């Protein structure tokens, strides 16, 4: 099902190119194991369970961590050899940002603008104003960041990450804790940005990747275990995913791909070339099935 082989055949016109990135922590955990990625402009998803290495990969690409080996390039710029050049093209939004105390939103954005290299005052102010508008915080420009709600903080975070018109935007679990309205709003902003930048989206929410990303990778144990466009990945499982509800008290089958709670018991999903039983019904493959299948294959 993996589309990595066919990707290797493609010419190297990727905006972001990651080659053989490895990282092993002092406690022996191998967080990245020869990770290769080729990412073009648009939204790119990173999926994986906890400890899969997503955050390590993101921090490494954000030049916050040194890999043990491997390289990565953005538009030809070597991120390890010339991190400052890469940083000028980088926007990074970590998983959580706190309430920076005692500073107004516009003032804090301005500060990060000059740290991003926007040192001309007029241009800086213009950019800050536009970003505040873009994330719908123009009315909160003079409000202290510490008074922001969770949703406002995430939008403020994306404004921070967008300072300097980054070519590569790395966002880690951006919608965690947001209500549906905020989440949709956030997705719209990301989609707009992805029109002319590489947006690397790391998330546990498979649905987000399915809806937003042109391509994605699934990481497990520090390795890329699946990579490709959502449609292509889904199509590889077409006709092979079956589902049924296992009533409470009945034992679950052994070959479950994944399962979820159901009002009548547990809905299980299995992978089979043919119907695994009379009580199973065919299931149109979703990215979630692809994700679990990839993890199972990797295991």
């Amino acid at each position: 099902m993996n589309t990595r082989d066919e990707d290797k055949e493609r010419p190297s016109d990727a905006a972001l190119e990651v080659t053989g990135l490895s990282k092993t922590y002092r406690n022996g955990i191998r967080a990245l194991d020869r990770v290769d990625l080729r990412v073009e402009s648009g939204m790119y998803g990173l999926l994986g369970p906890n400890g899969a290495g997503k955050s390590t990969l993101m921090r490494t690409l954000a030049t916050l961590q040194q890999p043990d080996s491997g390289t990565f390039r953005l538009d030809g710029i070597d991120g390890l050899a010339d991190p400052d050049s890469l940083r000028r093209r980088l926007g990074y939004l970590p998983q959580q940002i706190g309430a920076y105390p005692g500073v107004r939103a516009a003032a804090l954005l301005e500060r990060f603008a000059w740290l991003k290299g926007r040192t001309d005052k007029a241009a800086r102010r213009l950019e800050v104003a536009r970003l505040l508008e873009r994330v719908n915080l123009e009315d909160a420009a003079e409000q202290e960041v510490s008074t922001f709600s969770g949703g406002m903080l995430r939008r403020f975070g994306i404004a921070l990450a967008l300072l300097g018109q980054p070519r590569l935007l790395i966002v880690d679990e951006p919608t965690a804790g947001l209500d549906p309205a905020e989440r949709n709003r956030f997705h719209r902003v990301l989609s707009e940005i992805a029109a002319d930048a590489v947006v690397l989206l790391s998330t546990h929410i498979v649905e987000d990747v399915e809806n937003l990303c042109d391509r994605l990778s699934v990481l497990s144990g520090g390795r890329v275990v699946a990579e490709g466009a959502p449609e292509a990945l889904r199509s590889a499982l077409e006709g092979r995913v079956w589902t049924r509800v296992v009533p409470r008290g009945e034992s679950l089958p052994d070959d479950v791909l994944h399962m979820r709670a159901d009002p009548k018991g547990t809905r299980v999903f299995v992978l089979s070339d043919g119907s695994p039983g009379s009580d199973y019904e065919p299931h149109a493959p979703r990215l979630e099935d692809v994700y679990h299948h990839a993890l199972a294959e990797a295991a």
Partner: protein
Amino acid sequence: MSNGRFVLGEAIETFRSGVRTPLFPLVFAGLIGYLVVVLLSAEYMQQMGAIDIPRNSPHIVFLMSTGQVFWLLFAWAWLFGRIVTRDREAQLHELVLSTPNSLKALLLGRYLGTVALASLLGVSAPLGFLIVGPMGAAGMLPPDAVGPVPWLAMAVSFVLFIVPVAAGSGALYLVAALRTKSVAGPFVAAGSIIAIWMLSMVILRGGEIGLDLATLIDPTAFGEVETQTNEWTPREKMTRMVSLTLPLILNRLLWGVLPLLPLALVLMRLRREDLVLDRVRAPRERRSAQVVAARRSSTPPAPLNAPNWLGATWSEATWHLRRLVRSWGLAMAAGLLMIMGVAGSYVHVVQHAEGPLTPRAELLTPLLGEFVYIIFLFIIAGFVGGMMRRDEQRGFYEIVGATPAPLGVRLGGRALAAVMLTVGLCLIPVMSAMVMTLAASPGGVAIATPLATFVLAFAPAMLEVCGATILVHAVVRRAGVAHTLTMILAFVAVLNHELSLVSYPPAQLAIPAPISLSALVGWEPWLPMVLAFGVLKLGVFVLAVGLAWVAWPRQLVEHWTDRLPTAARRLRGGAGVTCAVGLAIVVGCAWLLEERLVDSGRYVAVEQDQRDRAAWEQHWVKRGSAFSVAGGEVELDVVPQERTVTARWAIHGVQSSGEALHAELPPGVEIESALVQGQPTDIETVHDHVAVTLGPCAQQAKGCAVVLDVRATLRGWPAEEQTPWVDANQVWLHAHDVLPRLGLDPDRALQTPSVRAEQGLPPSPAVPAATASIAAVGVAPAAAWTFSVKTPQGWTIATEDRINGPLDFAVAWRPEAPPATTVGGRQAWHGPEHGQVAKQVLDDTAAIRVCIQAKTGWSLPTLDTVVQAPRDGTPSIAGDILWLPEDGNWDITGEGFGGWHRRFVIGRTIARHYIAAAAALRHQPGSRWLTEGVPGWLALECVRAEDGQSAWRALLASEADGIVQALGSLPSPVRGLAEDGDAEWVEAYAPAATYAWASAMGSEVAQQRVSAVVEQVARGTTVADALVAQLGSAPAAELLGVPLASDVTVAEAAGGHEVAVDGQRWRWGTGGWQSEGSTSRAVRTTLDGEYASVSTPGALPVDDEFFVLDAWPSFERSVEDNTWSR
């Protein structure tokens, strides 16, 4: 689980987890390490009054235990803050708070566990004294420095000084932490407690305006312990416990028990949601003007090209500075600095116990530096530390790390902000000075002096603290540990400031250049040195910032070794350049200061000074020989531009029992050539002492004719606050600055037995014969001298050209004459704002001179000229001119103690000058009775005659305080007035004891005896022999022996028909006061000066007012209860 068991369990768990934090062993080891450093420093011990007593004596235990509470308060703030923050940092607070346990029990358990933890941390100070034994056994301490383990003192310190304040301050910290849900609250509380401590120490205790109140509000109890132990005799220091005075008991209740009430109140009212919800201000929606402007603009922002990182650094600096300036904490700190400055100035200057004083800039500026010093250090360490950690908010740290701004922009911005903050804060004491002078002396407002002092001298010293703080926060990843470390650094700086742990000025972290400001001398002589110190300290700051740049992690790191490759890479870039620049500045300035202070200047390290003095004693004392001179001529040529004086000194009739004429050489003075009988002769110069070979003429009746060509050059800078005697634009020289002092100076011998033993000297110094010693006053014994001086064009005032007495002269020169004030044909030269004081000084001088002449019949110099000498000098008379230093004399305004004391100083100077000349006095055992005791007695008599009984009593009480304090901080064991040379206690004690002696004898009889002694000494008899001859051996021994003390009291008796007189006597022995039983005889004196002998215990008839003093040559310990008034 019962609440009780839960509380206990939570307490134990809190204690265990606290012990396992990295801060705990760090602080514990730091305290012990600091104690070891202190115990190893003999000089430090001496500063604490521990001379020749064990270094683990109870009084050291008490002082160290209470002293270390000062910064334990900060460490405790962090510990108690953790009660609230520990769960929050781990995002577990909601989970913990949702458990089915009592919230009060949870917090109570944690509070109790933390009190135990804080007490364990605090016990490190007293417990650390257990290390003294092993240190002695390892040979690190001399055997006599190790006493028995002070178990009781350790236990008392723990129970009385550690546990209560740990519990009390901990309660306040917990309340603050519960309110702020962060450690910021406890640290603000700690800052407030320290501010109260400052108020207690600086305003109330320092200003002597409420000692009981000072004790009451002092959270550390250090002030009370210091006051008590200052008055302990050496023996008491080894055995005595701190007295539980009422203010101390109330203090312990105030700081140990009272804070539990607000804690109990808060715990009772606390709800779980108070700890879950964050306190947020209501949002204030306001559209930014720049957003509105952006709507109008259609131009998109340009791409990022060639950023101006220098501009970004400036933006970063101003941004951080704005954050600091807008914080309410800094506003509070600034307000506190202002209050401390104004209140301290008012108390210490306008209302000074030895005043009232006029708050002139030269007086006020150094005092302001003292008032704000401690709080300044902690403000800098706290706020700069906070600035360094500002970006450590969740997520922001990573975002900042991913920005392209070079690390230098972020660090440079912070460093610049720290500089601006420091300089800005330095302007607050300047404003305090202006407010004070405007209020008290509107005509004397001068901004230049305080501004220059605080910006050029004070700010660079504080920048060292900034640099150290920046470096610590860059190296240490954990914020709590870094904050604690910087507080420790600030604490060490405070102690060094108080006790001179490091005595070499350039090596003194955070201490400004030593200067002595004077209205006459101005800033000019100090400017090069202050600039050199300033640049050195700036270099230290730059170096620290460079090292911080090397060490500051930009990326997320697991282990410190991960930072090494980055650090090595940065050393090859901007960080390395910054380090190199800083290092070059430090090395360059250190070299310059070494050359100016040590090679060319007068600075000598304590150890080197001890070695030099020991070598001098071994080389010269036995070779000294009796000598006499008949007179001579001195021709001085002063060249201020070259800071040089050349002198041709012809000495006639030099006779000596030895082969050479000896002389002590002041720093910078050399004898270029010497002629004896017109022929060149050998000169041996070793250890700042010179021997000029005389030949056979020395034993002939006419003696030798000696000519010395002397050159005195002041090339270096003063290491202490001493005004240079010559500068390009002014000269303030005395004979002892530019000429060798003929003879041997017995005071050069080391006195402390332990130090002598270290230097391989016998326990007691060999004392040169009086006839071989230097003159008590001046540079050569009394004879017929002529003196001439050549100065450049300008204003010169100098001693008259004929001197019959000891050779002592003084010269002042300036291109322009200073202001002068003339009263009744008498003239005073003074500073620009001292015209009014000059009149008072002239009046004082005339009145006291007349009084002394009337009492003694001596022929005194007319003293119709008075010169205001630089601040740090000593009063002296050269020829017919009184040289009166600024300090303590020219700042006094109006009547009061200050005026009485000035008259006392002038009277003592006049009498001393006469006696030294009349007795042709040489430095010898007992000479200080003549130069301190008798002049002090006469001056006291004259103040009594001029200013009345209350003035005289106030001076006696002040002298008594001085004696007690001097005997409480002895630099060497007491041997006796005769033997103890220039010991501080002699200067304080001799006038009071001589006064008592003279009172017992009757003033006129005493005067006759003194005159007889002076005559005999002039004829060559030693002071001791002359006293024996005049008074008998027992009275002479008492006058010249160990200190004697009395406490005479008068009280109403027989139903108001009689006045009962009683008293006690003590004699100093084996390091303390030994009782000599009851007073047997006293002297009753009345307002009109009549004396009458009184047997004690006894009774006197009721009279209007009289004063009773022991008829024993002792000092009165408590003057207040000696006066009877109807």
